[in-house]
């Protein structure tokens, strides 16, 4: 069975990528909310926000990218839910294929779809004046963090995708994730926040991930934030993966 894992995953990933290519609106919807937020914060609120940097859009972009991923994975859960309810999952599972390819295909598709949305958002940010002195290595590091974060949230999205009772239920879990960057260093520096809020903001994953990406964009030397960010991403990834796989096995039993 497992000898077909890569071939089966490739075939099934091709299938769901075709779904994405035929409903590009989902990628546009994914990118539009973060772009609207970026416009709002840069051109309406940004003037009154003091971040101690020259360009607010450059300060803001890392957080906007996190929001892009958090709203993008809602579609991962949605696509998984549709496959499950349409009966095509049963068809695949009754076939002589490597069963876990069915999940991996959704995970890889989620990665591709999110990377496209991220690219769109970065292009808009560039048009709005985002500039970075980052070299190739720093950009690769940013890409690596974003890929890890997308994989972590995607495996998290697999759980509601498999267990939801309705379409709304499948994507509702992403709302708190989209909200999390607001209580972090994504929009404003945490220094102005009152005690308990500040403590939460400084110790939740988004702040370290945002800071790590921001430092790479600013071509700063590697600091503790990068390691904390990577630890969060890998930690969430491992836990989400284990829970998702357990849910998947329970679903099959």
């Amino acid at each position, binding site marked *: *069975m497992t000898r*077909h894992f890569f*071939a*089966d995953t490739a*075939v*099934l990933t091709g*299938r769901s990528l*075709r*779904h994405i290519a*035929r*409903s590009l609106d989902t990628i546009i919807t994914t990118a539009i909310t973060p772009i609207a937020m970026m416009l709002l914060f840069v051109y309406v609120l940004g003037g009154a926000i003091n971040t101690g940097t020259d360009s607010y859009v450059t300060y803001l972009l890392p957080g906007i990218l996190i929001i892009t991923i958090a709203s993008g994975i809602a579609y991962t859960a949605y696509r998984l839910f549709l496959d499950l309810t*349409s*009966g*095509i999952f*049963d*068809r*695949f*599972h*009754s*076939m*002589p*294929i490597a069963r876990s390819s069915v999940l991996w295909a959704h995970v890889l598709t989620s990665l591709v779809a999110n990377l496209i949305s991220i690219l769109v958002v970065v292009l808009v940010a560039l048009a709005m004046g985002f500039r970075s002195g980052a070299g190739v290595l720093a950009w690769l590091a940013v890409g690596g963090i974003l890929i890890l974060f997308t994989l972590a949230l995607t495996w998290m999205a697999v759980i509601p995708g498999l267990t939801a009772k309705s379409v709304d239920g499948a994507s509702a879990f992403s709302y708190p994730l989209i909200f999390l960057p607001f209580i972090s260093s994504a929009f404003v520096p945490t220094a102005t926040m009152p005690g308990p809020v500040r403590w939460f903001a400084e110790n939740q994953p988004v702040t370290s991930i945002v800071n790590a990406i921001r430092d790479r964009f600013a071509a700063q030397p590697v600091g503790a934030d990068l390691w904390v960010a990577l630890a969060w991403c890998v930690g969430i990834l491992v836990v989400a993966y284990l829970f998702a796989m357990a849910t998947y096995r329970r679903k*099959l*039993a």
Partner: protein
Amino acid sequence: MTATPTQAPAIHVQGLEKSYGKVEVLQGVDFDVARGSIFALLGSNGAGKTTVVKILSTLLKADAGTAGVNGFDVATQAADVRQSISLTGQFAAVDEILTGRENLVLVVRLRHLSDAGTIADDLLERFGLTEAAMRKVSKYSGGMRRRLDIAMSLIGNPPVIFLDEPTTGLDPQGRLDVWQAVRDLAASGTTVLLTTQYLDEAEQLANRIAILHGGRIIVDGTLGELKQLLPPAKIEYVEKQPTLEDVFLAIVGSES
């Protein structure tokens, strides 16, 4: 790609039990299906027909009892069972966003066969879907979807095919098309297990009929044997009126 056949019955089910929470859906189901025959599992909604099919197609685990398909145990030799079967579920399990041809090619690839294009085109031809081949399945009618669904199940020539309520929700013409497809399958030696809640469907198609009720098979036999369970037929003279189905098919022009 078909697994090695053995001399045992194509499907052998003994003492199958399955509960969902406190609801005991199956309470000791026994039946055998002979190779190359059409076997109808008859029962009302919620009788557990789909549960039986899901256990036989390795999608569900039974709580107790044994089930074998093509000589392989569903619990311990699941991979061999999957190699031997195809499942056409209760709702046409086709990919709506892909075209009919892409759906077929997808299954050919997942069955690890070569020459996907030729296999797909042959099946499209055989099921009268050549014209619709390049159209998205979301634009298909219910009958076309079902035909595509069954065509997908034939890829790789599995020796055993499960059809779970294959004609539910179809119009009369779609129903006749599916019946013909099932007869063709059996004629070519494939074993077919179909579930249905339509008595006439079982009567039309099946070599053997089993009635699933209260979690058990309460009757199992040929149509002739089942009829003998009732008092002998009386001869009555009744004027033969055309049924609405006859009228419908005569007007819309059916070939059968």
